[in-house]
């Protein structure tokens, strides 16, 4: 099966039938920046960080099936510039203050910023008004940091079977909502043990009373840049032919 290959920045990448370009790259130990992709969930394709050029045309590597002979470019100046712009868009869209964030050092958005050399937010901040939700006894929701990757939505629906989260609004007004008439997490059956509590790549879903258990400086991405964690993002199991 692994006879099939495509090239990624000139390097031969083997792949199994059914794998995406992203999955094959990660399996081969080559990191492609991403935020909404998660090895345990179906590809989503919304953050666009993983955009590459495939045979000269832009495409998201998480949703494009790998095929023999593809020529994929990822680590080029042009693509890296665009990824930096996308990160800057996310940084100004929400309210991200890394020095006071419990997720600093564990945050994929921050880690990708370092990885790609984002030195400034570049654009004017939007400073949206996003009240926090502290109604749940064990969990704090800080919507200020939400990047709308929908991982909590997918985890709650597909793994927990609870549908605690969903999206409302449209365009720049799109936002995460909670499955309760009051709109409060405390009025749902959400639990800290839910899969949805584990998947947030940024600092929206936080366990209460566990602040700064690991000192800043000794955290996951403090120790090594996100690209060195490529093993953690490898596909977990052969992808069954799920709905794309």
């Amino acid at each position, binding site marked *: 099966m692994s006879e099939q290959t495509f090239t990624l920045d000139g390097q031969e990448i083997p792949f199994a039938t059914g794998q995406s370009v992203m999955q094959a790259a990660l399996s081969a130990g080559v990191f492609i920046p991403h935020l909404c992709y998660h090895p345990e969930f179906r*590809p989503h394709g919304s953050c666009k960080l993983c955009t590459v050029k495939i045979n000269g045309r832009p495409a998201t590597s998480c949703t494009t099936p790998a095929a023999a002979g593809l020529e994929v470019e990822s680590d080029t100046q042009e693509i890296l510039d*665009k990824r930096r712009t*996308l990160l800057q*868009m996310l940084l100004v869209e929400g309210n991200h203050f890394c020095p006071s964030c419990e997720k600093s050092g564990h945050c994929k958005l921050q880690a990708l910023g370092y990885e790609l050399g984002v030195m400034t937010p570049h654009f004017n901040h939007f400073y949206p008004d996003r009240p926090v939700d502290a109604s749940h006894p064990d969990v704090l929701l800080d919507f200020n940091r939400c990047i709308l990757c929908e991982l909590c939505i997918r985890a709650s629906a597909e793994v927990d079977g609870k549908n*605690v989260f969903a*999206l409302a609004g*449209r365009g*720049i007004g799109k936002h995460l909502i909670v499955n309760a008439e009051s709109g409060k997490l405390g009025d749902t059956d959400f639990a800290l043990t839910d899969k949805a509590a584990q998947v947030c790549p940024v600092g929206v879903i936080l366990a209460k009373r566990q602040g700064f258990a690991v000192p800043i400086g000794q955290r996951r991405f403090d120790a090594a840049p996100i690209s060195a964690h490529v093993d953690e993002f490898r596909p977990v199991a052969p992808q069954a032919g799920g709905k794309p």
Partner: protein
Amino acid sequence: MTEPTSEKLGIILDRHRRDGTRLMQILRETQEALGWLSPPTLTAIAQGIGWPRAKVEGTAGFYSFFHTRPMGEYRVLWSDNITDRMLGSLDLMQAMCQKLWLEPGRVSEDGLVSVDTTSCTGMCDQGPAVLVNYRAIPRMTLARVEQMVELIRTRTPLAEWPQAWFVVEDNIRRADILLGNDMLPGDALKVCLARGADQPTMETASNERSFREAIHTGDAGPGATLDEIKRSGLRGRGGAGFTTGLKWEACRNARGDSRYVICNADEGEPGTFKDRVLLTRQPNLVFEGMTVAAYAIGASKGYLYLRGEYRYLLEPLESVLATRRRAGLLGRNMLGTPGFDFDIEIHLGAGAYICGEESALIESLEGKRGVPRNRPPYPVTNGFLNQPTVVNNVETFAAAALVALNGGDWYRRIGTPRSAGTKILSISGDCERPGLYEYPFGVTVRQVLADCGAHDSQAVQISGPSGICIGPDEFDRRIAFEDIPTAGAFMIFDMRRDIFDVVRNFIHFFAHESCGFCTPCRVGTTLLKNLMDKIAAGHGTRYDINEIYNLNRVLQSAAHCGLGHTAGNPLVHTLEKFRPAYERRLTSLEFEPAFDLDAALSEARQMTGRDDAAAHLATEPEASR
């Protein structure tokens, strides 16, 4: 929730069989009955259809025409296309707000009325237009504003408003095979069936599927109809121009339990209104085309996705469908042919431009937020309810009916070798005779301008904001897939107009209509909007122009769908062709410092009593601006 309220809701839910895929219709009817969608109402609907509440709230929150907050007994929405603005819509809206003591977007203290803008309502040839409680009223004037304010203040029901206000003109200025058609309902279907007369029927085929599918392609039956469509060279009229015959064939050959035919009447591109007129004047032709498609691909169910702005067409179209059912042109065993079953249902949208994208339309049809799907797979294999689905534009189906009736060779002779048939243009803006013009493909822009009485034209925006903007040096180009492809919008701007205002209106539109799924479009369209507002406010520099180009590149390469890919088009097209419209607004072509050094020296000049040239920091002559 009070008892009468829950009773009303129960009736609506039952009418839709408590089926979640019908959520859009449930929400609309509930809102029509109760005024708005309150939190308890959404909870009750969610329980009624067995969906998570947040998912129902998510759908309700996606569409502009659903409100999860009270918006007044009267909701007045002013169409905000540039053509409405050119006809004075902003002044009229302001006058209305003043008379009602209102700010745009806010509800009056007594909860009576709200006034706001909405994306183009498709009345560009008879603007300025409004929607009052989602009923279209074109040709607004100051006198009408005054009368309307009075009717609202006295809480007069809409049914008692002057009926002349609600009349929408067809304004057909040039008719050809589509707009001038006089085919009798059923004629095209009879020809289709006659083509298959010597082929197996239900009696000889083992079941319905084989009746439809055994004949792969050939000179008789559904395959023969498909062959005529292929032979005609008909291409999609929604803008993308995909070959219709290939789409139908791919759907027919796709594996599935059932097949669907969907007519895309979510005519949201600002400046386009041809589908409104086709559905008013030629509804039978459109429904016949859908039925022809059903016959060719083996579908038994069809949907017409009608944009919410055309709510007033719902009852007339329902009555056309009822007539067709009575005539045996819809329903079971149509035209007495066993197994020839097909029916059409009308699904109303609720104010979301993105639902014109076929996969977003299908999501909406399933009761969800109108977000374009990841593709592949395409709707022809995995469409509505994950089944093979054909989605075509209103005009495409109308043309397909004529192809079925008269044959592919007849159709192919019209137009140009690479663009068969006719194209209906929706003409608005600066001309004497706005309205609909149907031409064989290949007509020049110059000819169109002459026909509609346009003088001193500075620019024409073809195919709406996502299309192209051309100036006088390109007026000899042709409307055709091989030159200027278009879904039909044709907005004319004469020398009095400021192209910058036009483009600013377009980018506001895209920012408002972005679905928000992907990062580049969600954030990028707002960034572009902010840049244009900054330039408009007189704070722009060349740096901002470069930023527009940079953002456009990110949108073009990284956005999820066509909306994002094309959102920057009007900006870069006009920057190339109408650059002075931007530059005369820039404070500096090079760099505009926040700090004025020369002005800061004025105190020193005063103290030394000098005002000669050497005491100034004029580094560049004024002419370089």
